[in-house]
């Protein structure tokens, strides 16, 4: 359908066509195809950047981090569920069975960071925290505790605050000190045990601190989590090696919990540095296209929230379009979709490893209900 154009439009069209004619812009399709098809089909939901391996590596780190944070939402495995293939998690190289901690009575002072979830075999565990805690008085090789993601539920009701990682179903006996013996939600073996009595697998000399060999997760001192456990050794990292990230997990109800569809990640410190650089050059206020407002970290988060609200349509829809529902790309939004925003800190520790630590509770926007 031909639509007549004014002279100005014709000029603009000509100028734009010249504008997009850049040397080297056209690629050899053979190169494009070779780069893409070198990867097997269906080998992942997200693609690497084409020409920048460093960006690919960075993306991998981010995805790993989000995977770690997203990893632990409870799917159930209540031991009564009789699941034929239990959900498993690996912490410090040791494999644990994942279960719900219904009936557990835990105070934060009972918990010490023990390690990060290294892998997980069930993608439906999403939205939780990547840190595994040891319980005071309990052998960490028998059982660990992980905070579950908020807002999840199954047929038995809302998920409890904690997940339990055990080496075997017998390991629940190690946790009886933290169960009420009269609570029907407690494991059978604990209902007859005397509360507070250490089980045979309980450490003889429980320590509130992780052992030196236990790869503790550092807790950054600048913004400790309100629910964080005791701080690690101050020599594990320094402030220059801590980066703040704000990560948004995009989730949707699945009928069996929540599923994560992707994430958006911002390096808040970099944003702030760039904003300050702009200010030093005499510009003020809103910077660039991202509408991040110069100011404190908190203001950056507020800016983020504003942006999130502003981009609730296409951006969110794009991520949710991973469901292959292309209609969403046009700006629709799944009614059941919800967002979770986490603030993370990436910390480079002395041995060069990177660990990620959630420093605030969820700062967003909504929960997967």
């Amino acid at each position, binding site marked *: *359908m*031909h*639509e007549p154009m004014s002279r*100005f*439009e014709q000029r*603009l*069209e000509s*100028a*734009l*066509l*010249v*504008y*997009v004619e*850049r040397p*080297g*812009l*056209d*690629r050899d*399709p053979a190169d*494009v*195809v070779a*780069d*893409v*098809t070198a*990867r097997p*089909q*269906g*080998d*992942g*939901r997200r*693609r*690497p*950047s*084409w*020409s920048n391996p460093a*960006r690919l590596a*960075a*993306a991998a780190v981010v995805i790993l981090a989000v995977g770690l944070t997203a990893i632990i939402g409870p799917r159930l495995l209540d031991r009564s569920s009789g699941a034929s293939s239990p959900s498993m998690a690996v912490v410090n190289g040791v494999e644990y069975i994942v279960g719900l901690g219904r009936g557990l009575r835990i105070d934060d002072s009972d918990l010490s960071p023990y390690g990060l979830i290294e892998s997980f075999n069930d993608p439906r565990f999403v939205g939780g925290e990547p840190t595994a805690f040891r319980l005071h008085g309990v052998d960490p090789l028998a059982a660990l505790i992980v905070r579950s993601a908020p807002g999840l539920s199954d047929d038995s009701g809302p998920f409890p605050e904690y997940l339990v990682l055990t080496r075997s179903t017998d390991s629940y006996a190690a946790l009886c000190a933290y169960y009420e013996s009269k609570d029907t939600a407690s494991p059978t073996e604990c209902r007859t045990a005397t509360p507070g009595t250490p089980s045979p697998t309980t450490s003889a000399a429980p320590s509130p601190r992780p052992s030196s060999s236990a790869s503790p997760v550092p807790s950054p001192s600048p913004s400790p989590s309100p629910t964080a456990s005791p701080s690690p050794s101050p020599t594990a990292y320094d402030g220059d090696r801590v980066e703040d990230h704000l990560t948004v997990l995009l989730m949707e109800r699945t009928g069996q919990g929540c599923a994560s569809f992707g994430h*958006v990640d*911002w*390096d808040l410190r970099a*944003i702030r540095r*760039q904003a300050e650089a*702009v200010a030093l050059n005499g510009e003020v206020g809103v*910077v*660039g*296209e*991202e509408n*991040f407002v110069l100011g404190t970290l908190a203001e950056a988060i507020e800016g983020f929230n504003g942006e999130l609200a502003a981009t609730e349509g*296409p*951006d969110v829809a*794009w991520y949710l*379009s991973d469901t*292959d*529902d*292309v209609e969403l*790309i*046009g*700006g*629709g939004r799944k009614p059941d979709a919800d967002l979770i925003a986490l603030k993370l800190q990436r910390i480079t520790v002395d041995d060069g490893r990177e660990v990620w630590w959630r420093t605030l509770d969820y700062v967003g926007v909504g929960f997967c209900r």
Partner: protein
Amino acid sequence: MIPRRGKVFYQGDVKHSLRPVHQVGMDVPVEVERSEAGSSTMLARVRRGDHAAFTELVVAHDADMVRLCLVVYRDPDLARDAVQSAWHRLWSQPPNLRDETKLRSWLLSVAANEARQQLRRKRVGVVRELRARPAPGPSDPAGEVDRLDLDDALARLDPSERELLGLRYVLGMSSGEIGAHLGLSPEGVRSRLQRLLTRMRKDLDHA
């Protein structure tokens, strides 16, 4: 056969020439019409891992995707990266399109969104590049000053506004096609374009 505005035709051997011809009514050999008719079988073949089908889609759409991303994000590297990511996505996760004639729209949307996400990751665009404007003179490449003026004018628009310009004037889509792509009515597209043109005219006239 007279190509209509809004369709892009390819001239010459598609294996060697990727240059789209945008002019209305050009009398050229047509090897590949980027109509959506062939896409249905293409997508099914891509889903089966057919390299030849995938190559045909790249030949047919890559240049437009890159150019649209370039207009929207004004960064050639970003545009190429974003489009490559879109191709990765098509290959690794071919969409289940109920209406496979929407493949072109899907590709353009994914490429634009990839660019938006990469822009966020790179945090480019936060600090605007300052360039020395070349003094007018015989040694200046023709059109360079105009290009800078246009780039400045584009920089003052939102990405969504630049996308509208790119769809209309670079890809040659009609208001109806743009509306179908963006989920707007043709009247809404025309109205937005008019507002944009008013701003662009003002900006370019004052440059």
